[in-house]
């Protein structure tokens, strides 16, 4: 499989620079050096809690924001916008409240696909069919749509320019569970039919598990762990991944997370020199607070990597059996 997207040590800082009097302005370190390759046709899930930099990362991949350091490369296609598109979390907010659906969908068809007149009308109808909506919705205003319908329109707009890669930023988080399942099914169906590649961002571990081929766990702007979804879920190496998995409630499972004072992140204005998770980590030692652990394979498959000085090791049986006890 060929790579469609390659991120090389991407970092994004906000603020910074000098004030009028020469003092340094505070800098927020949102993304602190992420390298990641996405292969054509796969779904990479990106999980993390609020403030981990996942939305900033997504905005950089689609070109709405630019990295302070590092590079983002898309394969082939010179026209970047045509090959990657974005599906927003708040589907209703991504539609102009004063424009009908038809106008919203026509813009990318005209601007990016160069369609006019009859050809555009035909493609509009086709798009609506693709996302399984009646063409009558074309004449609706956004406030006349339900959350699920608005999200389908958001997907249709992203598909208008026939992209190869879709970045889905929490596409189902704002939806009720029954609507969530409808949209997930639609996304799975589209991927199979149109041969798309997904970068799927969510805070919901179970949604990510059900959609992803590979999973990247983000903590405080860095990759904590990355690997095949099954391997990461079955045998987490990074203590943060293990904490996340132990914290997620699941039907029929008693919940017993380890005691913590508070799940606060380190100060994004002043990131610690070592591992950002060290302050919360039961396995942390002095070295963790001083040196940043590199992302490396730790005993599992070579494509299962984590950034930890003292990764959790699993027996061979545990890795296959999926037991976390």
């Amino acid at each position, binding site marked *: 499989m060929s790579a469609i997207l390659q991120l090389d040590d991407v970092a994004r800082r906000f603020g910074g620079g000098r004030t009028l009097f020469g003092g340094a302005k505070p800098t927020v370190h949102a993304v602190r050096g992420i390298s990641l390759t996405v292969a054509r046709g796969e779904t990479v899930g990106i999980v993390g809690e609020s403030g981990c930099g996942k939305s900033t990362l997504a905005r950089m991949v689609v070109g709405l924001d630019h990295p302070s350091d590092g590079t983002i490369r898309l394969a082939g296609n010179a026209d970047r916008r045509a090959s990657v598109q974005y599906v927003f979390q708040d589907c209703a907010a991504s539609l102009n409240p004063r424009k009908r659906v038809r106008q919203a969908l026509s813009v990318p068809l005209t601007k*990016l696909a160069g369609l006019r007149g009859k050809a555009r009308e035909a493609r509009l109808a086709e798009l609506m069919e693709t996302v399984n909506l009646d063409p009558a919705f074309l004449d609706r205003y956004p406030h006349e749509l339900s959350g699920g319908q608005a999200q389908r329109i958001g997907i249709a707009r992203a598909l208008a320019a026939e992209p190869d890669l879709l970045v889905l930023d929490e596409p189902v988080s704002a939806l009720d569970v029954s609507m969530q399942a409808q949209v997930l099914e639609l996304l799975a169906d589209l991927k199979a039919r149109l041969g798309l590649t997904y970068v799927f961002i969510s805070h919901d571990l179970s949604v990510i598990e059900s959609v992803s081929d590979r999973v990247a766990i983000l903590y405080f702007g860095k990759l904590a762990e990355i690997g095949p979804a099954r391997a990461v879920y079955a045998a987490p190496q990074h203590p943060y991944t293990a904490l996340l998995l132990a914290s997620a409630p699941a039907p029929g499972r008693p919940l017993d997370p380890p005691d913590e004072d508070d799940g606060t992140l380190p100060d994004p204005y002043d990131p610690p020199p070592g591992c950002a998770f060290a302050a919360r980590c039961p396995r942390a030692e002095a070295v963790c607070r001083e040196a940043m652990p590199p992302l490396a394979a730790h005993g599992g498959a070579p494509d299962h990597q984590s950034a930890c000085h003292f990764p959790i090791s699993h027996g061979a049986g545990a890795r296959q059996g999926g037991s976390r006890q």
Partner: protein
Amino acid sequence: MAVTDIAAPVTPAAQPARPGAWQLLFANTLATAGLIVITLVVLVALAAPVLPLADPNATAPAARLTPPLTDGYLLGTDALGRDILARLVWGLRVSLAVGLSATAIAAVAGSLIGLVAGFAGGRVDAVLMRGVDMVLAFPYILLALAIVAVLGPGLVNALYAIAVVNIPFFARNVRGLALGLSRREFVDAARLSGQGSAEILMREVLPNVLPVIVITMSTTVGWMILETAGLSFLGLGAQPPQADLGSMLGDGRAVLFTAPHVAIIPGVAIFVLVMSINLLGDGIRDVLDPRLKSGALARPGARTKIARTAAPAPAAPGALLEVAGLKTHFRVGRSTVEAVRGVDLAVAEGECLGIVGESGSGKSVTGMSVMGLVPSPPGVIADGAAFFRGDDLFALPDGALTALRGSAVAYVFQDPLSTLHPQFTIGQQLMEAIRVHAPVGRKEARRRAEALLAKVRIPNPARRLDAYPHELSGGMRQRVGIAMALANDAAVLVADEPTTALDVTVQAQILKLINVLRRETGVAVIFITHDFGVVSAVTDRVAVMYAGEIVETGPTAALLSAPAHPYTARLIACVPVLGEPDRAVKPIPGRPPALVDLPKGCAFAARCERAQDDCRAGPVPLAGSGSRAVRCLHPLTAEAA
């Protein structure tokens, strides 16, 4: 079966006809009155040249200061014997023209500055807005005076001066909105759709800003007419022989004591004109401002309105808290939203009951109804009762209910940032919760508040008492919310999605805390959530709600492993479960029914693959044996599940 065929495209439901802008405006009597007066005034002003009026500038020394209603002089004459009616009509023309021109100039210039500043942001914004702020740093009319002082008195100069000092109002309003809009996702979406900046500004942002420009115009035009009249009154605007309403009033002032009508007539004219413009302006604002349009600014009362015909008797003796036959409606305009349609619930001491459902299922409204916390208007408790230790809470007088709030039944809400008062320290808020129920001094209340923080495992409680909510993390704030609910040893805790706004690791801590506190204090909990995983982590029993009704209830583990109602089964099946990535996620087709127009039979029938004709025929009762009950004529049997 047809309903499972999800390939069938989603078709739009019929839209209720929405009243147009003009209809809404005419529904407002005062605004309509204003519109009529203004229309008349404008017509008269336009028609001035053709009306049979005397020459407004012709003096008649013999007829000076003729009182009104004299033959030939309907409104009398002024100190030079000029006909006041003719001068009034011509003066009106001038005042209107000047006021409208000033408004137009200020609106165009101000909106342009605001649009560019808000959309461009950064340096451009900083430079433009600092300039605008400078203008605002002058007391309003003073700057106009300074400008007139330089340009020299005169009507056109007054017009410019008034326009300039009003530019900041447009610039600020438009800039604030444009700034917010340009950070909105639809602007990002337009950018990704290939639109350039200028195009986005004109085609995406401007249409959303226009209503605010119109609102600002309609609320400032009256003011600008007033101010230009004011400058003329001071002798700095219209110069003789030209006259507007303000200079007429200024002339009349000289003869105020001998012939007051000369001043009063133009004064009343200005007042009527400005008043009708303001009435119309308010009407326009109400129509265009979406927040006011929906009537959302109605003040919710201290307690939900109760409009039940008869109170039911308690059916579950021995229950700590019982809800019987509860129906809560929202009356919006002429339609009634039936949010809760006959809910029966009971919790025993120390028990944790979960209420699960999607948004709009009525789960939160049920919880809020117990202590009358559903906002009224529009909420109304239409039927049913809530019994606390056998006492009907809905029958209590206001004072008695307030005394039970927080002491018998306490609440924990979803978003811990918005539910704590931003301007009081958490210590003040905790101490207040204690002192409204217990007659203790400040010292003792503070000691108890500190103990409460320790109880919810907040490190360093004494210091945290003096923190404001925004200084704490989300998880800490929710702990404070829980501490506040526990302040008076309430017997029942209603927790309404208390962890939904929190990150998963924080959620786990809060859920664990709730479990520990239940064991420590023996408090009964009603836990409202949409998440089966959460339900499974904290509750003993669970009730599943759909379209305002409980469709199934039973012990949590049994219900989750063998759901009897098709909705429960499908709802469980459509959520991915951690550790089971291969489990097929099966969506439920269709959408929940609108709560204004419910089918007479089972509300889920339209989406149910097991539905038959009898399901749609009439109401389905909640029936069951032992601890489990289900509202279904064709439930799933244990073997089928």
